[in-house]
């Protein structure tokens, strides 16, 4: 069994709100580890709309999603948070008391274990997971014939592969798997692709030389038995249908957000949101806080700026769990030399 990581706070989600919580906690000498299922910081800002301008961040007449994330990273740099990417928090277990909370937090991929005094859930809309197409009975084939990611290419050697989608993942895996596939078919809804132009060109030349097939349409149903796929029925725009023989199907429809394991942690939930009080943004479990888009309370607005405020107030209560013996002095960064020292800007 691997040793656990001891820290003050585990923040679940490294989006803008989770990142700013590092700042507010850092000012109070509270150390954080952040876990995110994405390979990078920024959450929705970086994954869904990095280039989109945001106009309602106080002090920024306009900032892009990625620009905001970059600035937050610079702002929290003095506090040296530790990031754990490509990991999803699988379990959250209480091992303390309501007065002195303590938690054991475990992630799925690498099985990292943390022990901490407070947990901040800043998970937005939940975990980014592959979008599953609504095809009847697709679940029966998942993990045996239907895969949403390629972990080991060798698994697909000499298989009849059907790849569905028109973005970078679909096109990259088309050109990478084609050489080892028995036959590869790419299916997309239209004859236009969002992927890198040279990859699209490579795919088109493979089609032209007869080394793979390209079809336009949508999967309408699957054929197979005992969790093993034998074919996919394709519907074209004109309503006609035909079958593509395949052993495996790889749908690449991008990512969506799902609440995931959070539902199993004994927290009260209201329509997939976590109710909190508006003084401390604490959940029904003392020591577990929820900030940003994932929480709900009367008057809640799903704005990034609300999440910043929520993190600041949560930090005040977390201080009492982390330093029960210390009295918290409220200070301003403009005037407090001790805060300025923490920020590395003291004169």
């Amino acid at each position, binding site marked *: 069994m691997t040793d656990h990581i001891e820290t003050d706070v585990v923040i679940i989600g490294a989006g803008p709100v989770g990142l700013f919580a590092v700042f507010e906690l850092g000012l109070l000498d509270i150390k954080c580890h952040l876990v995110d299922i994405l390979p990078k910081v920024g959450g*929705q800002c970086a994954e*869904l*709309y990095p280039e*989109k301008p945001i106009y309602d961040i106080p002090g920024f007449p306009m900032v892009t999603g990625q620009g905001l994330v970059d600035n937050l990273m610079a702002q929290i740099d003095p506090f040296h948070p530790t990031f754990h990417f490509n990991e999803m928090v699988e379990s959250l277990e209480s091992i303390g008391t309501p007065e002195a909370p303590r938690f054991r937090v475990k992630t799925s991929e690498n099985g990292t274990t943390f022990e901490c005094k407070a947990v901040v859930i800043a998970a937005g*809309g939940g975990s980014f997971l592959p*979008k*599953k*197409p*609504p*095809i009847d009975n*697709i*679940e029966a084939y998942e993990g045996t014939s239907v895969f949403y990611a390629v972990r080991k290419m060798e698994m697909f050697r000499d298989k009849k592969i059907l790849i569905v*989608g*028109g*973005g970078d993942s679909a096109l990259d895996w088309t050109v990478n798997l084609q050489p080892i596939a028995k036959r590869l078919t790419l299916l*997309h*809804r*239209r004859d*236009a692709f*969002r992927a890198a132009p040279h990859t699209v060109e490579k795919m088109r030349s493979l089609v032209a030389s007869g080394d793979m097939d390209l079809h336009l349409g*949508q*999967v309408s149903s699957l054929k197979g038995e005992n969790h093993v796929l034998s074919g996919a029925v394709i519907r074209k*725009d004109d309503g006609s249908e035909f079958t593509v023989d395949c052993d495996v199907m790889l749908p690449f*429809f*991008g990512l*969506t*957000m799902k609440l995931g394991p959070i539902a199993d942690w004994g927290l009260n939930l209201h329509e997939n949101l976590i109710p909190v009080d508006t003084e401390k943004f604490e959940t029904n479990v003392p020591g577990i806080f929820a900030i940003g888009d994932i929480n709900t309370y009367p008057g809640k607005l*799903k704005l990034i700026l609300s999440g910043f405020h929520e993190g600041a107030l949560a930090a005040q209560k977390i201080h009492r769990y982390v330093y029960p013996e210390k009295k918290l002095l409220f200070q301003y960064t403009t005037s407090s030399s001790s805060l300025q020292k923490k920020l590395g800007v003291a004169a």
Partner: protein
Amino acid sequence: MGVIHVTDRAGQRHTLEAIEGWRVMEIIRDWGLPIEGLCGGACECATCHVFVDEAWLDKLYPPTEEEEDQLDTVVTKPNSRLSCQILWTPELDGLEVTLAPTGN
């Protein structure tokens, strides 16, 4: 004032009062029908995917390239649109849409 008709995933048809200048996604969400609208109308997630009744298709502005890109991430029909990209105006009084199925 006017209305839109929305058929939910159980096949039930709802008549919703529409508001000029609102996106169809916002009207559907405001009335409490199950539409996710994850990205909030930024044309970045395709979770507001609807099928538009054929009779209405030509009355809508055609999809932008950005909307087409997002439609690539769901299982579409020829009458697929993202409801966050349809701004409701009185000309769309009586617009008929069906919520598209979502995967698990």
